């Protein structure tokens, strides 16, 4: 019984939050990795693109709520998601046309493109703050929990409770659908195959008549969909605040690099590795350990390895360790 109680506590505080957070990171890292694979630069504006997508979702959700539209137990934001995706697609395609294309035709060095993306980051950050302001915004509605602590205790009779928030369940389901759709697209469709070919060997792909502008356009559209979804899910699960998305840049990049830049599978694995390490290292283990350890060995402290404010340090240390010992990441990414 004690073991079960301990496991439930672990699930409640570590496993479930980490899976949800990991899914959000994985979606973000997929975007970073796709851009790196096909456009060949690290996109610093990624966090702010997520913020933009989430902002569109927030605004459309408010509009729907104002009209009295809702999905019952599910958040209305789900209904707003297609609009967020379309809005983000429009934004990134316009950005590509106005900014990035010039450097692509010039064959500028990757580091120049990174600096350009810094400029784009400023602009997007400014646009988001201009439209919705820098403050917290609430847009979550519907049922809050799939299982609440009380229901779980009544159901099982355990001392520890387990809560699964609707947003957490939703995050995982949506992330799985996205990943399946993405892999189907990349492996089965003609456009997806041409994208992979272009990523593997640009010259050879051009030689076989693949239109690079088309590949780039599709890449941006897929990335826009992923970022908008990731941004909205994160906003639903935690809170929508423009600056938070900028701070997500570091864990997202850590995920993408740990998995191997340019490798979609790596991005997903990296997302979960970073999320689990972050949550596990900053979690106070006292509760779980008191269940699992014999009474004589029970810890007196909180058994928290690092305070939660150091979660950036965790993604950073993982990043450095991987880069030092396996520079191309776990799944053999590419290096430009």
């Amino acid at each position: 019984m004690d073991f079960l109680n301990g496991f439930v506590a672990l699930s409640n505080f570590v496993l479930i939050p980490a899976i949800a957070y990991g899914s959000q990171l994985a979606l973000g890292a997929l975007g970073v990795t796709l851009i790196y694979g096909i456009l060949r630069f690290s996109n610093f504006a990624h966090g702010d693109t997520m913020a933009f997508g989430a902002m569109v979702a927030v605004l459309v959700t408010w509009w729907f709520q104002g009209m009295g539209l809702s999905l019952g137990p599910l958040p209305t934001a789900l209904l707003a998601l297609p609009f967020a995706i379309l809005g983000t697609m429009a934004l990134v395609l316009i950005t590509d046309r106005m900014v990035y294309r010039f450097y692509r035709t010039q064959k500028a060095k990757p580091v120049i493109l990174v600096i350009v993306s810094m400029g784009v980051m400023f602009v997007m950050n400014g646009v988001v703050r201009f439209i919705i302001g820098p403050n917290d915004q609430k847009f979550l509605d519907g049922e809050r929990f799939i299982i609440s602590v009380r229901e779980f205790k009544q159901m099982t009779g355990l001392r520890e409770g387990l809560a699964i928030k609707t947003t957490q369940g939703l995050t995982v389901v949506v992330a799985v659908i996205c990943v399946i759709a993405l892999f189907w697209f990349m492996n089965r469709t003609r456009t997806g195959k041409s994208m992979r070919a272009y990523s593997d060997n640009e010259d050879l792909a051009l030689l076989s008549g693949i239109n690079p502008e088309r590949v780039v356009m599709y890449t941006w559209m897929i990335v826009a969909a992923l970022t908008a979804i990731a941004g909205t899910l994160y906003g639903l699960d935690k809170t929508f605040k423009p600056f938070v998305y900028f701070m997500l840049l570091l864990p997202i990049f850590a995920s993408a690099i740990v998995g191997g830049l340019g490798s979609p599978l790596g991005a997903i694995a990296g997302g979960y590795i970073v999320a689990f390490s972050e949550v596990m290292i900053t979690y106070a283990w006292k509760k779980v350990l008191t269940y699992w350890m014999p009474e004589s060995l029970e810890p007196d402290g909180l058994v928290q390895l690092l305070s939660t404010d150091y979660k950036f340090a965790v993604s950073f240390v993982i990043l450095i360790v991987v880069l030092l010992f396996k520079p191309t990441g776990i799944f053999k990414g590419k290096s430009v």
Partner: protein
Amino acid sequence: MSDTVKNTLLFALMALLIIGTGFVQSWNSALFILNMGLISAIMALGVNLQWGFAGLFNVGVMGFVALGGLAVVLTSMPPVGEAWAAGGLRVLLGLAIGAATIVAAVFLNKRLKGRARLIGLPLFLIVGFFIYRAVFDPAVDAIEAVNPAGTGYLGGLGLPVLLSWPMGGLLAAGAAWLIGKTALGLRSDYLAIATLGIAEIIIAVMKNEDWLGRGVKNVNGLPRPVPYEIDLQNSANFVKNAEGFGLDPVTASTLFVKLGYSVLFTIVLVVIFIMAQAALKSPWGRMMRAIRDNEVAAAAMGKNVTRRHLQIFVLGSAVCGIAGAMLTTLDGQLTPGTYQPLRFTFLIWVMVIVGGSGNNLGAVLGGFLIWWLWVMVEPLGHWAMEFVTSGMAEDNALRNHLIDSAAHMRLLTMGVILLLVLRFSPRGLIPEK
């Protein structure tokens, strides 16, 4: 038009902008812009050293600036004797144990092979970590318990505040050496992500380690290298002189203090600028640019690329640290919560790119110009919004939203400027020769 004439004109224009601010707004805000512009110029010189000379992509400027700020506290505040007695030595011992663990781990990593390394190294690190926490944590609790509302930290060395500027440089240089040892040699965009992370970690440490610099409780009332306004206003001599200039004593005292800072900052800027110019023109500077332009060729000529990168990374970061110490001295307080990457890292990058990367004069001009814009965009944006919406009704929701949002024009403007410069004049206002 020769280069000299063009550069003189550009700087004259910059001076006109600042003087114009003095006439239109007030001399106080003009001097504020000048002082911050001087500090920004020094930061831009530091980044230019790394990016312009050596092509190192460092987006952790904020971290080094913050370390400079911490150095001011550690140097100039009086030591808190009671806190030192409560746990000062024990904290130092804890830190020493932590450092020794890491050094030993690096050593073991080189010595051990195969399975012994795979199991032994993590085990060693975990044991070391727990010993470190066991020594360190009680000491921290003891220190933070000493008068938490007033001090709750170890204090500094009680040295003159001007000494903290070189100390800031040293502290930043030390951190940069550690970081460079691990992160340099990574590819350019990996280095960028790594430095971005390090800056966040430095800020996290400063926010949370209350025993070091009081964390988010801030350290107020740092000593100043210039006299206090209130003392000047009470000095009969000063009041008489002020009246001689036709100024009231209050305004005169604030102007006098700000001018004092301007003089000090100008001296530092000129010294660093002359050194940077000398470095650029020396064989060492040529070697750096050779490495930047073609690492493989430079390595083939027998240049140790990694060592040189480490060298210039440390130097550039030290310059940023000095600027950070000056900034905190000017503010008179250390507030770790106010360090934002957009303001302290990416804005400096805009300065360097707009001014002209690889050119020291360009970096200085960029520092002044972008800082001026950063300050002026807000009132200008407000004014522009008033103008645009002047046709709308007074209580129009869109009008109110636009006017309220004018404050956020800054980031937008900076981004647009950076993109325009990169597109149409990628070498900046004063290009590298």
